[in-house]
């Protein structure tokens, strides 16, 4: 190889012309001048045929002297196009301007090798993320003969790594937000619980003190209303907590044998005063009993959210709740005759913090339907909406009727075994 390295003073152009078909590892001029040992040819062919790594030699000044197939594939140059050119061609302009290529050779000659990952430029100008090793090559007299350069394209790996990092950041951000939500709702609830107890005590005291005074009814109402509004606030905070649990997978569903119709009747009963205020009549049409394994609390939450929505958007028209058993599934349909939901809104309303209406016209956080859908799914069911703007909406929850608790509890419950 000696001649190849000695020729570093010759013009790169001449060198390229002198060996026009250099698809070889070594300079043909060099090969031609000496006796080739059998191992040399095998090694030359080996390096030449490597496709996944660019393997090539630089002379001591950094001029490309050999070029393998991998180098051609990676960087896009054919041997005639690049042999004789300075290797700084492979670096982005700003790095060339900063003297990076020469510095790398300096380090390699001082320390024996230089290794890094960085951006490199292909023939077509595109960038790739390269793993580069530059090894200084010395002859027997310890004279620097040049550098062996091995380059790998790690663009894909880097992209995958970047995506992994971004995903991890996103997940961490969600975790932090949900943890905040969880702590905030707990902290907000604590004084509210005390406040509601005081409101109850106030009501009891007022009724006791003013027991026989007809004109004291206004006082009782005030105490009752403090409690009512406090409970509304509590419910909203509870929804925030549920949402944070839903998204961190900590919401537990504990099925037990319950009568769905009984749960519906209970929920409707608790909503009678509110229904009266909003001017809606709530009608239930259901078989006498539908028994199955569901989480009564979560089922109540599903019905509560649908019914409170119907009351909110129902425009003083009757609300019909219908229960229908169809084979192994039960459908609970809550129908209002209110403002309705535009088709383009109908998917969006099941997402977190999304609302069909502007917050200015109707209150709420936009969490109710999100919770309904997640709870229905946790029971192996689903929810869908049919709606016509101006005519009203029907939300239908479909749940499997599970007659045997065993497997479902094992799968869904996050409550530890006692």
């Amino acid at each position, binding site marked *: 190889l000696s001649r190849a390295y000695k020729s570093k003073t010759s013009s790169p152009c001449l060198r390229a012309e002198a060996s026009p078909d250099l698809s070889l590892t070594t300079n043909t001029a060099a090969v031609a001048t000496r006796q080739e040992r059998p191992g040399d040819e095998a090694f030359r062919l080996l390096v030449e045929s490597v496709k996944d790594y660019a393997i090539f030699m630089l002379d001591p000044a950094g001029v490309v002297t050999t070029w393998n197939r991998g180098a051609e594939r990676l960087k896009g140059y054919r041997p005639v196009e690049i042999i004789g050119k300075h290797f700084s061609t492979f670096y982005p302009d700003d790095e060339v301007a900063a003297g990076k290529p020469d510095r790398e050779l300096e380090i390699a000659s001082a320390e024996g090798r230089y290794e890094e990952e960085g951006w490199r430029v292909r023939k077509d100008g595109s960038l790739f993320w390269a793993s580069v090793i530059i090894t200084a090559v010395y002859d027997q007299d310890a004279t620097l003969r040049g550098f062996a350069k091995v380059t790998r394209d790690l663009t894909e790996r880097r992209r995958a790594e970047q995506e992994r990092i971004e995903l991890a950041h996103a997940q961490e951000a969600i975790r932090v937000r949900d943890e905040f939500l969880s702590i905030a709702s707990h902290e907000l609830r604590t004084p509210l619980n005390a406040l509601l107890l005081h409101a109850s005590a106030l009501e009891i005291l007022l009724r006791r003190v003013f027991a026989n005074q007809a004109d004291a009814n206004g006082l009782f109402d005030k105490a009752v209303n403090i409690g009512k509004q406090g409970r509304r606030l509590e419910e909203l905070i509870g929804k925030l907590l549920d949402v944070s649990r839903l998204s961190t997978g900590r919401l537990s569903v504990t099925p037990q044998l319950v009568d769905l119709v009984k749960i519906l009747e209970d929920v409707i009963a608790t909503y009678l005063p509110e229904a009266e205020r909003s001017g809606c009549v709530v009608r239930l049409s259901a078989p006498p009993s539908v028994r199955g394994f569901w*989480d009564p609390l979560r089922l109540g939450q599903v019905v509560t959210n649908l019914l409170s929505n119907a009351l909110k958007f129902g425009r003083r028209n009757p609300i019909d709740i219908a229960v229908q058993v169809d084979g192994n599934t039960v459908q609970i349909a809550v129908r209002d005759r209110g403002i309705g939901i535009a088709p383009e809104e109908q998917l969006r309303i099941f997402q977190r913090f999304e609302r069909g209406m502007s917050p200015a016209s109707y209150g709420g956080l936009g969490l109710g339907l999100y919770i309904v859908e997640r709870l229905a799914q946790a029971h192996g069911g689903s929810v869908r909406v049919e709606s016509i703007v101006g005519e009203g909406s029907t939300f239908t929850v479909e749940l499997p009727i599970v007659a045997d608790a065993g497997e479902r509890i094992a799968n869904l419950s996050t409550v530890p075994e006692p």
Partner: protein
Amino acid sequence: MTHHDHQEIVLIVEDDVETAKALAELLSLESFDSIIVENGQEAMAMLRTGRRPCLILLDIMMPGMDGWELRDAVLSDPGLSTIPIVLVTADTAAFGKAATLSVPIIRKPVDAGQLLDEVRRFC
């Protein structure tokens, strides 16, 4: 609390002092006396003095020894294991566990009527 219409006393275990005081005041309206402790360790210390409450109103989410751990400690002490316990919590996740263990549970925010009914049942 200084009412003596009932001989017995309710032990309120609740880490939020304001909530505990509000519970005690509500109970006092129906002439139930109560003692407030802020955590599981204090509760065990009080119970071991020998004063036996007619009922333990037990918050679940407490720092240190939580409500479930206190319940276990009470149940495993032969002198205390027959004291009735009613859980009071906003943690909906606790409801399933309470149901499987048949422990009475009151949901926060506490409904005054329900609370007083439970207390009357035991005291």
